[in-house]
């Protein structure tokens, strides 16, 4: 038998992550990539319906100044049978507000292993890699992986003119009243 191949893990100093659930499935997301955590109701209260063919995971959007946030159903994105998420992660530097079921906990990871090359389809866009926490393997999602450029173009094309949805432009409410939490 040959000696073991070199490790493929990327050593990290320590990265703070949020463990969250969609249905029974556990995922991890770097906390630095989450700009806000809101209740889905508080976000969708100011949202407008959108119907973009081929992008079923997005049903609503919110305008914030010049930016448009798309509410992405994480369950639909990953193909998980689960009710619509009740929490929304507004992901930093993206146009995604991710709807998830619950936050399991916040913790830190010290090692991120690249996704094995055997995984060779869309999941390579979905995940930064895998991490092992308490003898459990958790996929670490890529914030930019929820909406591809092609999907964003389709969504933009399906957006109504700003004047038609201006009345529903979200007003950022006080965190105390909408249970929202700003991170970092």
């Amino acid at each position, binding site marked *: *038998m*040959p000696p*073991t*191949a070199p*490790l*493929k*893990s990327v050593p990290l100093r320590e990265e703070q992550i949020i463990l969250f659930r969609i249905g029974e*499935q556990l*995922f991890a997301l770097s906390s630095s990539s989450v700009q806000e955590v809101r209740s889905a109701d508080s976000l969708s209260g100011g949202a407008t319906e959108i119907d973009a063919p081929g992008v079923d995971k997005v049903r609503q959007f919110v305008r914030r100044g010049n930016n448009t946030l798309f509410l992405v159903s994480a369950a639909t994105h*990953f*193909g*998980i049978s689960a009710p619509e998420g009740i929490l929304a992660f507004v992901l930093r530097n993206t146009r995604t507000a991710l709807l998830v079921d619950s936050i399991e906990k916040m913790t830190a990871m010290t090692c991120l*292993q690249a996704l*094995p*090359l*055997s*995984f*060779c*389809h*869309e*999941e390579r866009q*979905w995940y930064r890699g*895998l991490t*092992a926490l308490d*003898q*459990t*393997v*958790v*996929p670490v999602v890529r914030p930019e992986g929820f909406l591809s450029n092609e999907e964003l173009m389709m969504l933009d094309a399906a957006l109504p003119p700003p004047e038609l949805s201006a009345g529903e432009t979200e007003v950022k409410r006080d965190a105390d009243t909408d249970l929202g939490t700003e991170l970092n």
Partner: protein
Amino acid sequence: MTVSAELELKSFVLLRLGERRFAVAADGTAELVAPSRVFRFPHKTAKIEGVILRRRRIVPVCDVAEKLVGSRLTTRRFYLIALRRYGQRTEWVAIPVTGECELINSELNAASASDEPHVAGWLSHGGDVIEVLNLDALTPGPRDFGSSSAASQRPPVQKARQSEARP
């Protein structure tokens, strides 16, 4: 057996999938491990069941039985950890197998052009003719790494094998 004939022998690991036996080159395997928990998460690669944790590494589990024997394994006793090449890179992949594996020395008869890409060759053992697997062609991977390259590098068919019956 002459000295020159002995030099032709190579080491292979015999594995069992259901009722059939297959072989992989011993230098393409790492270890045989007992079943452990398979961690599953959403993905789109059909042959991959999930991953296992082994020696602090995360190893994908690839069930090749459906392709080789027509059905997934209902009972499995071990995972054969094999080395999967992706160009210059090598990664571990866990192959579920039934029964224990056996290390043998045998002569490899090269595959022919008519064999499927996952057949690296054939060997005779215990009265059986056994497929030697090319895991690079059998397990999934990015197209960039051309899994059929091994087939194009096959040596010419040995005439001695032409009369052998295959299972």
